[in-house]
């Protein structure tokens, strides 16, 4: 079997009394786009810093293509990091920044220039080689940081919330480019983010972190459609949660379930005897879709998203409706 790019075994990191990472184990394959998703303080960034070598593990092991690197300094690991604040050297030009790692590796001037030029072309920054970081926009700095890391051809690239400081439009554009660059280079990307959309849209697999541990590990589809617990269901996407008692009542299930708001049907009250009747208590128009809050006659409140109607009758507050669930689209929580 092929060696995993990264193999983490029972990794724990304590800062004084605080356990930031609590017994994390995972394997990441070569060429995989792997995301670590979680709220702030969930330990995802600490795992990244442990892989990079900026922190030493309290216990556990990190293997890079089979080699134990747990106690190696960052400059002896074949991984590179794109920092959240980009960490560009302010006294160096764009080219000097990109060439920094190459200079250390003792690569000659002409080849260095060549490689730097290629890397800058890959991130579409050809024209700005002589600028200083202070003369660049946030998005451009982000690209320089990326070029500086990939130019030394790491086996694994670590990205610490690299798009966090960019505005929405730029972020969406960079997401596409990151994905393309990753496919082109074929190297393993480990991507830390607290943005669930980003994690779902970019990754081959996602690890959802909470309180220092991995709660769920799987493909974006798995994470979204089969969340293991309420935390994952709530953190990734929005959901309607039914505890065990309610699940029995509504779905005849013995464990808690969640239903995604887009998997719920709303019909006019009069024409159906199935489902649960209720009244619309709020309609939020989002352009392409409506978020409808329905208060069931049982007292339970449910969020439903519907494709918004361009013409014809609109959903209104106070409208009587019937809510029906498709049994195959109900996710039973396993924890």
């Amino acid at each position, binding site marked *: 079997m092929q060696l995993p790019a990264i193999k983490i075994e029972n990794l724990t990191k304590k800062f004084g009394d605080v356990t930031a990472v609590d017994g994390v184990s995972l394997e990441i394959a070569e060429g995989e786009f792997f995301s670590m998703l979680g709220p702030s303080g969930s330990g995802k960034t600490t795992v990244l810093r442990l892989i*990079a*070598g*900026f922190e030493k593990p309290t216990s556990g092991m990190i293997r890079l293509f089979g080699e134990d690197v747990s106690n190696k*300094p*960052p*400059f002896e690991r074949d*991984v*590179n*990091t794109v*920092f*959240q*604040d980009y*960490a*560009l*050297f*302010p*006294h160096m030009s764009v080219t000097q920044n990109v060439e*920094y*790692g190459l200079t*250390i*590796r003792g690569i000659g001037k002409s080849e260095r220039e060549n490689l730097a030029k290629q890397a800058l072309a890959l991130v579409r920054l050809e024209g700005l080689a002589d600028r200083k970081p202070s003369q660049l926009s946030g998005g451009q700095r982000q690209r320089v940081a990326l070029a*500086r*890391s990939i130019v*030394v051809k790491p086996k694994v690239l670590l990205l610490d919330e690299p798009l966090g400081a960019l505005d929405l439009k730029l972020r969406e554009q960079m997401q596409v480019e990151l994905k393309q660059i990753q496919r082109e280079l074929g190297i393993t990307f480990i991507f830390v983010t607290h943005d669930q959309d980003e994690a779902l849209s970019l990754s081959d697999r996602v690890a959802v972190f909470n309180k220092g541990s991995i709660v769920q590990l799987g493909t974006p589809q798995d994470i979204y459609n089969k969340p293991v617990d309420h935390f994952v269901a709530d953190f990734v996407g929005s959901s309607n949660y039914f505890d065990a008692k309610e699940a029995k009542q509504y779905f005849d299930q013995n464990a808690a379930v969640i239903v995604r708001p887009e998997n719920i049907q709303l019909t006019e009250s009069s024409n159906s005897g199935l489902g649960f009747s209720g009244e619309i208590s709020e309609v939020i128009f989002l352009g392409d879709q409506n978020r409808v809050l329905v208060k069931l006659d049982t007292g339970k409140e449910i969020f439903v998203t519907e494709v918004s109607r361009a013409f014809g009758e609109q959903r209104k507050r106070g409208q009587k409706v019937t809510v029906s669930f498709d049994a195959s689209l109900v996710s039973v929580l396993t924890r």
Partner: protein
Amino acid sequence: MTTSTAEVETRLTRRISNFLYQRSRVGLALLLAPPTFWLALVYIASLSALLITAFWSVDSFTGDIEHTWTLKNFATIVGESTYQAVTLRTLGIALSVTVIDVAFALPVAFYMSKVASRGWQRFLVISMTLPLWSSYLVKAYAWRSVLSSGGILDWILTPFGIPSPGYGLEGTVITLAYLWFPFVVLPIYTALQRVPNSLIEASADLGGGTIKTIRSVVVPLIIPGIIAGSIFSFSLTLGDYIAVKIVGGATQTLGTLIFTNVGTANNLPLAAAIAFIPLGIILVYLASVKRTGALDNL
């Protein structure tokens, strides 16, 4: 309706505020007048007085100052080998003190800003500045006792077969390096604090070992701090005469020469002329520092 004094006051201050808001130049002039007055009268005027005095001479018989223009004093300090030797010695002391201070300050400041825990860091900053609260004279005399024969330094060094430096050139350098150390370490510490840790991590991440990181990333970014500190140690040493008197033995510096000429020799014009040597050196130093571009980021 009665108006209280407080209300009248409020109305008056409001009217003044409104007046100054509408005529911002008047406000600016009022704000700048006191410091400008101070700078012009106390600082520039006294420097000019010093410059003028240097062109006068002293009647060797009566000891009175003769108010006739002469270049005699400048001819003396340029021409006589004693003055050249003292200038070179003072320059040498100032450079040694600066080099020693910077060499000690860099690792200390690095430890304080990047390695030490928060509490320990605060403790270190306080202990660095604490000596500034005690009298200069006390510290100089303390070093006199440390350097004395049979003193602490003697006691430590004798078993190793090294004689204590005693009073003289070496003692002067050691004492001055001690006295100006806080002035050197604090600007470097401040500069280091402004270097984000992620830059140091990024350098290590790209393969830079400790020495490469310090040389290519840390030092270029803290050069302004190093220069600010060196200006303090360098200029303070050039002008010092008290520590030299206390621990320098027979060592003569520009400071002690000025002191002797003002006091013992009663030759104020010559002292004024000598005072222009350190002033000139500092101007050359600042100009050369400025040319390196290191002051651009201050």
